[in-house]
């Protein structure tokens, strides 16, 4: 483990997460310096980190509730401080659950729990769902989506049982709209919003797939961009502009290593952290 994270992206490894190596690889492929940061390392080391990513998996084996135990961890005290000061923080899948349980997202009242990532609600089935879906990037000021155009559609894999953004407080939804915080929404391959399964794969409010804080430096997203960072990871039967790219790479190994639709999330913060 490195003893300095100066200028690097720290990918937090809580006990039970399992996407940290591939997240580090994707961040490096985007041109970032990234290292795994064990949860029990000195939180002070995070001071010098350029950004922090909470990867997917099952922190603390999802005991009690997905993300709930990790959200209380000592390292989250430091992360709360740094995120409050503007450090870019990305939570992917279980990382998103941790950020929601920690009250960083939606972040309207810092550390207050205004949202939940509840069990999926789907027609005629329940529980875990794993598939490729389509995301629409909405107008926003989030530092993690700068590489995408407003309205751009990106295919991305999801794999979760508890990914339904929900709140009991209708005012929270209004506030999130007002602040353009719902930055990623589940949509059809043509970009149409539809609240029913499978376009909205988990019953999330407002088709939300990713929500940032009002300042735009913290993003919680359920899809896995690290699993869509190379063209070789994209299914051949995907629709839209990525279909042609993916099919064009068949039997051309060198093209298979080209950028995939998820790499932009990692590339987006290069300008932010170098500026």
């Amino acid at each position, binding site marked *: 483990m490195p003893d300095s994270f100066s200028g690097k992206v720290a990918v937090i490894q809580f006990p039970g997460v399992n996407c940290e190596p591939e997240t580090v690889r994707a961040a490096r492929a985007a041109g970032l310096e990234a290292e795994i940061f064990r949860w029990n390392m000195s939180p002070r080391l995070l001071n010098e980190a350029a950004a922090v990513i909470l990867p997917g998996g099952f922190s603390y084996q999802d005991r*009690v509730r997905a993300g*709930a135990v990790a959200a209380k961890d000592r390292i989250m005290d430091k992360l709360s401080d740094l995120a409050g000061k503007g450090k870019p923080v990305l939570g992917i899948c279980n990382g998103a659950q941790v950020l929601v349980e920690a009250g960083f997202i939606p972040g309207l009242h810092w550390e207050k729990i205004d949202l939940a990532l509840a069990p999926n609600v789907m027609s005629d089935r329940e529980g875990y769902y794993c598939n490729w879906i389509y995301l629409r990037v909405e107008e926003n000021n989030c530092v993690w989506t700068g590489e995408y155009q407003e309205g751009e559609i990106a295919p991305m894999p999801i794999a979760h049982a508890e990914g339904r953004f929900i709140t009991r407080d209708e005012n929270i939804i209004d506030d999130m709209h007002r602040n353009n915080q719902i930055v990623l929404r589940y949509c059809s391959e043509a970009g149409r919003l539809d609240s029913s399964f499978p376009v909205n794969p988990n019953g999330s409010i407002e088709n939300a797939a990713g929500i940032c804080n009002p300042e735009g430096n913290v993003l919680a997203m359920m899809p896995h961009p690290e699993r869509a960072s190379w063209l070789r990871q994209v299914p051949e039967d995907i629709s839209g502009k990525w279909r042609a790219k993916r099919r064009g790479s068949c039997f051309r190994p060198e093209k298979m290593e080209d950028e995939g639709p998820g790499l932009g999330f990692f590339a987006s913060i290069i300008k932010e952290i170098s500026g």
Partner: protein
Amino acid sequence: MKARAELWVKLKVTDLVVETAWLTLTEKLDFDYLRGLTKYSCWFMKCEGNSLEETADQLNRVITLDSTFTNQNKHKYSLIIEGEENKTGEGKSSSIAKRGDLNIDEDFTLRSEASSGKLYACDCFVTELESDKNMNYTDRISGRPGDISISEMRAGLVWRLIIEADSRNDAEKKAEEISVTRSRRGGLLLNPHYQDFEIISTVSLSERGAN
């Protein structure tokens, strides 16, 4: 005959979810008045059958055969059936039938001793909003041969919190603080945006002499 039935199910071995919750609550969140913690899967239902004992036997057969409710290799359980009313519908019957190898009325394990206050055991029932699980459980019981009809079903988790407090009200207030996650440094056991919470029982352990 109408009856209320309660099924309480607990792991025979150490429940690691409870261990993690205990460490989180006492070491990360400093709820130093928490003295004990246990978790049960619970089903509370209203049912109707031919007689109390027959209903108890039929329900007992279903829950021991269907691993949705219990797995005999890893669970202890308590099935309690209480007659709701007599044939004319007047007054309450005190008839109770019990099955199973778990005595929930005596299952109070202290992890740390009380310092000065009294001890209370608060049973916090946590259910999910917008879940169709209750319907599924009803179908699983009704789908088995027998004469039981289920009219109401509530399924969820019961966290039994043993709390040091000055009074019953104080204990219930502290149980809510521990249970409901309102902030990062707040409670742990449920997220109020998709889960409901109810204290279904508070027992004074000091009065029972359990301390």
